[in-house]
């Protein structure tokens, strides 16, 4: 009787058994690390034994010029990058989604490819363009426009350029997806009701593509805020960004606790931007209700880009 009970109970818990691996994986490697970081940023260590001393010193030590400047720089770069990508990507996405009829797959293929190409390779490729004896300098010298080569690489401008380059596909994809799905009848009925091209664009197309814009902005903003590869390689390692500083703390200076505190602090900055941005968009998109995570559904990632046909 008892044995039977146990068997039944086990049978009943089979789904629990099945969902646990993913859940435990997620908890162990996502949530527990988060709490470890949080803990590290508050606790002082005394040798091998963890001292029970809670301190805000790590956070306080972050409040100097250097750290604030690094966070501010990252923030400005990430915001500018997101906006710049949006401005460049929107016309292209619009053109591809709504104007191109022939060769569409061809164009799409070349749009997806950079997304699937390793970022390091992209950075590497740009050296051939920007370096002192790279393509641009060679051409300019040949044309006689300049006499001494320009130093185009290894500065803050080249970092920004590379950020735009590397994250542009992240902006185009969601925009393309949403513009592709946009119902042509809505646009036609706008024309039908007497609106001209611009009025139609600002009153119909643009508002309806807001979810795509939001996704794109997030997809560009988040990784560029935490960027550390581009400044390290293309920036001549001259300026630190949030990502570089985190990696400096954890991998170079081995100052884990300050690093943890900095990670948490910059995470809070990111969260703040999230909240502001969400608030802004929810004001704009009153009609499209839904939890904010909707912006991050991976379906809006490039995987989906072809399915709209």
């Amino acid at each position, binding site marked *: 009787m008892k044995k039977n009970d146990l068997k039944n109970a086990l049978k009943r818990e089979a*789904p629990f058994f*099945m*969902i646990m691996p*993913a*859940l435990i*994986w*997620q908890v162990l*490697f*996502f949530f*527990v*690390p988060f709490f*470890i*970081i949080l803990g*590290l940023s508050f606790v002082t260590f005394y040798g091998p034994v963890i001292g029970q001393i809670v301190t805000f010193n790590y956070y306080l030590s972050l409040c100097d010029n250097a750290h604030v400047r690094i966070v501010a720089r990252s923030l400005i770069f990430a915001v500018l990058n997101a906006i710049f990508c949006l401005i*460049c990507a929107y*016309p*292209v996405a619009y*053109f*591809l989604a709504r*104007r191109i009829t022939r060769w569409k797959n061809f164009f799409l*293929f*070349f749009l997806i*490819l950079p997304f*699937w*190409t*390793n970022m*390091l*390779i992209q950075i*590497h*490729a*740009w050296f*051939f*363009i920007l370096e002192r004896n790279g*393509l641009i300098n*060679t051409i300019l010298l040949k044309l006689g426009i300049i006499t001494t080569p320009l130093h185009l690489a290894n500065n803050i401008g080249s970092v920004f350029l590379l950020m735009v*380059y590397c994250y*542009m596909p992240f902006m185009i994809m969601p925009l393309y997806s949403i513009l592709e799905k946009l119902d042509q009848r809505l646009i*036609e009925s706008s*024309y039908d009701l007497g609106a*001209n091209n611009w009025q139609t664009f600002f009153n119909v197309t643009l508002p309806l593509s807001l979810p795509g814009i939001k996704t794109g902005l*997030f997809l560009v903003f*988040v*990784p560029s*805020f*935490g960027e550390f*590869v581009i400044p390290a390689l293309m920036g001549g390692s001259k300026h630190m960004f949030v*990502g570089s500083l*985190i*990696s400096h703390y954890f*991998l170079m200076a081995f100052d*884990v606790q300050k690093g943890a505190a900095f*990670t948490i602090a910059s995470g809070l900055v*990111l969260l703040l931007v999230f909240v502001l941005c969400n608030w802004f968009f929810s004001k704009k998109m009153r009609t499209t209700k839904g939890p904010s*995570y909707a912006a991050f*559904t*991976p379906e809006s990632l490039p*995987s989906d*880009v*072809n399915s709209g*046909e």
Partner: protein
Amino acid sequence: MRQKESSISRYCLPIVTVGLYMFLYIPMIVLIIFSFNSKEYTYQWSSFSLKWYYELFDSIEIWDALKNSLIVATSSVILSSVMGVLLVFYSAHTYAKKTFLLFYGNLVVPEIVLAVGLLSFFAFFSIPLGITTLIAGHTLVGLGYVVPIVHARFLELDNRYKEASLDLGATENQTLMRVILPLLSPALFASGLLVFIISLDDFILSFFCAGATTQTLPIYIFSMMRSGATPVVSALSTLLIVISSILVLIFSSLQIKKTDMLQ
């Protein structure tokens, strides 16, 4: 009934588009060309040579790194797909149906934060960094893609397929294997490919979770670039671009086939 296009949309849009494509592709093309350059220390063309490709194919480290990359990518695809499907299938329509929401964080949090967290976790529990920690990290990212994609597809699937199967006498496991998995397979394949390529390209997480102990291809490329990029990197990059193109081709033909089926 479309109104006459304004000159802006007529001329500016194509120009901007072509400009963007050039912006995206000129560096790549130059890179590919220069991988056949014979001189080592220059960004200027001298003469055609395949020697960097020979060097590439001779190098033990690169193939070792590629092997590691493939092992990690394959394992994380398998692990995240299996775990993701099990989670979605057994949690949907039960008390645990909201659990999938937990996985959205993996995509929202900057990768470097994930990486730092994992590094601290492994340090905290004195787990030696290596290929398994790499797999752990990549699988975590993979779950962030697989779970939402498969979950969305699963919800689109009529729950009646599951019910019909149970109704006809199948157990849950039989239903999963015979009905749900075949129906999910396009989504699963797509997300699997996505996870594969992301794992193959991933640098930040690998850099933190394995560091120098287990070289993956991106880590190898990074360390080579940091020590002054030799043209071998260009040759390797060319090779990787070709591989990516093939994967994208597979991917998009797959998507098109799927949409064909629906029509």
